[in-house]
């Protein structure tokens, strides 16, 4: 039996009246890439902070690496790598110094740290910037530095809270590439995100959170199977819109949005043809595969959460 690195039962986090995390159950096994998906305010970060042993559990059981955060916080944190949502880098120090000082927090000697820092800066492609101050680095470089820093203690479990939020597409792909390599090396990590493509690319298994609770769990593929169809047809019309109910029967599920109609179906081409045959020439038709985004919107709704 492989032991859970994270084990939670009925986990609750309250801030006064507000219930941020409302009784979640969770198990993350060795070697898994696990994702928390959810809109802002769903309770992802509160959960991550409890797992990171910097936020006391309000109720329920939580075991990280087999230990209780309330009892063994420092011992657990010694084996975690944390990439927080907001950067916590020291802008006045150099790239190298940031990793060095962080390594010292773990009690690692300067002699041990030197080769590790070289290796990690190389891994995140920052070797050439090692002697530069952090302040002028781009957002993507700062994130990569934070990732390098989080690996300095060779953690058993890596926690990444929205690792690519705010980065441009190129920078995001570099970060994903590095995380993918970590995954290939067998690192266990937990990532929160509201980017579906990120979850789809990185996670073996994920949970969708909404209003502090887990509303779905599975691999990206399983979730798509369960909560969506294989394909989606998106049709747009010119100013004139077809009457309600006209798509009835053309697909397994129909979602009419202000700007387009989504038809969830097993066979996209057949559905597209059927729509055209009903005498409704659309302005444009797009047949695509279902994505996690379809699952996500289905589960958490289209209403804007702020």
């Amino acid at each position, binding site marked *: 039996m492989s032991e859970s690195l994270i084990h939670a039962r009925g986990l609750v986090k309250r801030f006064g009246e507000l219930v941020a995390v409302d009784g979640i159950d969770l198990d993350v096994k060795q070697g898994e890439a696990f994702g928390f998906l959810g809109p802002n305010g769903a309770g992802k970060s509160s959960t991550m902070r409890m797992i990171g042993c910097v*936020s006391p559990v309000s109720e329920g059981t939580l075991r990280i690496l087999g230990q209780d955060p309330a009892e063994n916080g420092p011992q657990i944190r010694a084996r975690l790598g944390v990439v927080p949502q907001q950067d*916590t880098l020291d802008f006045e120090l150099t790239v190298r110094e940031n990793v060095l000082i962080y390594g*010292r927090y773990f009690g690692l000697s300067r002699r041990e740290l030197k080769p590790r820092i070289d290796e990690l800066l190389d891994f995140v492609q920052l070797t050439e910037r090692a002697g530069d101050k952090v302040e002028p680095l781009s957002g993507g470089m700062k994130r990569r530095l934070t990732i390098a820093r989080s690996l300095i203690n060779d953690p058993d479990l890596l926690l990444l809270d929205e690792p690519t939020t705010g980065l441009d597409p190129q920078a995001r792909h570099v970060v994903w590439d590095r995380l993918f390599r970590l995954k290939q090396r067998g690192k266990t990590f937990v990532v929160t995100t509201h980017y579906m493509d990120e979850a789809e690319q990185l996670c073996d298994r994920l949970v969708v959170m909404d209003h502090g609770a887990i509303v779905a769990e599975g691999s990206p593929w399983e979730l798509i199977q369960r909560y969506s169809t294989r394909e989606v047809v998106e049709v747009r019309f010119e100013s004139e819109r077809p009457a309600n109910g006209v798509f009835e029967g053309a697909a397994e599920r129909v979602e009419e949005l202000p700007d387009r109609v989504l038809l969830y179906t097993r066979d996209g081409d057949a559905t597209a043809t059927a729509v055209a045959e009903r005498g409704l020439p659309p302005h444009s038709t797009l047949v695509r595969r279902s994505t996690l985004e379809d699952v996500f919107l289905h589960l958490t709704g289209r209403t804007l959460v702020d």
Partner: protein
Amino acid sequence: MDSVLQPLRAYEHWLAQYRRVWRGTIGTSLVNPVLYVTALGVGLGTIVDQTQNAPGGVPYLDYVAPGLLAAAAMQTATIESSWPVMAAIKWSRVYHAMIATPLTERDAFVGHQLFVITRVFTSAAAYLAVIAAFGAVPSWFGVLVVPVAVLIGTAFSMPMAALAARVEDDRTFVTIFRFLVVPMFLFSGTFFPVSQLPLGFELAAYVTPIWHGVELCRMLTLGTVELGPALGHTAYLLAWTLVGFELARRSYRRRLLG
């Protein structure tokens, strides 16, 4: 063992940062005392001494120098525990980096205070060297003003850190400096005996830690140490330090562990 070593690791962070700016602060640590002692001790002092009515019956330079040193310790400590603490919580978020590792919020706090103590210690040593060069330290007991300055520093930096870890807006610091630190600097026995103040203000001065610090420093540099009052002043400064420590520890806990 960890409770000793871990704060030292947090302390290393502040030293690494300080390494980039220390030359500048050494400059101010020497130049400021020279300016103050010249203007007040030598300039104003010459006039005061001519009145044959100098406070304490000693040259005014000797009277004012230890007061200036004590007040400088207060200012250094208060500044170092205000904006930097808020920055480490809200802006650079350095404390959050620390507590993601084996370090606790207590280690982050103690490590930072060790650095504040380092700053107070080095500036007080520089101050002592300057006033000694001006001939304002007649007694060898004067060497002890450096540890006393550290105690004055902690009596201010601990409560200040407790407050800085609670407030949201850094304008609070400006208010504190304007309405507490500056009046304490001017009216707590630094430049003239508090007995010259109206009674209400005189009593208020006795409550401030800085009056006790000034008195203690002055009896050391002048060599007029009386054991009873000296212990009383020390105990009072220690009390502010310990209460401040406990309050700050709670503030940090509340603020960093949400």
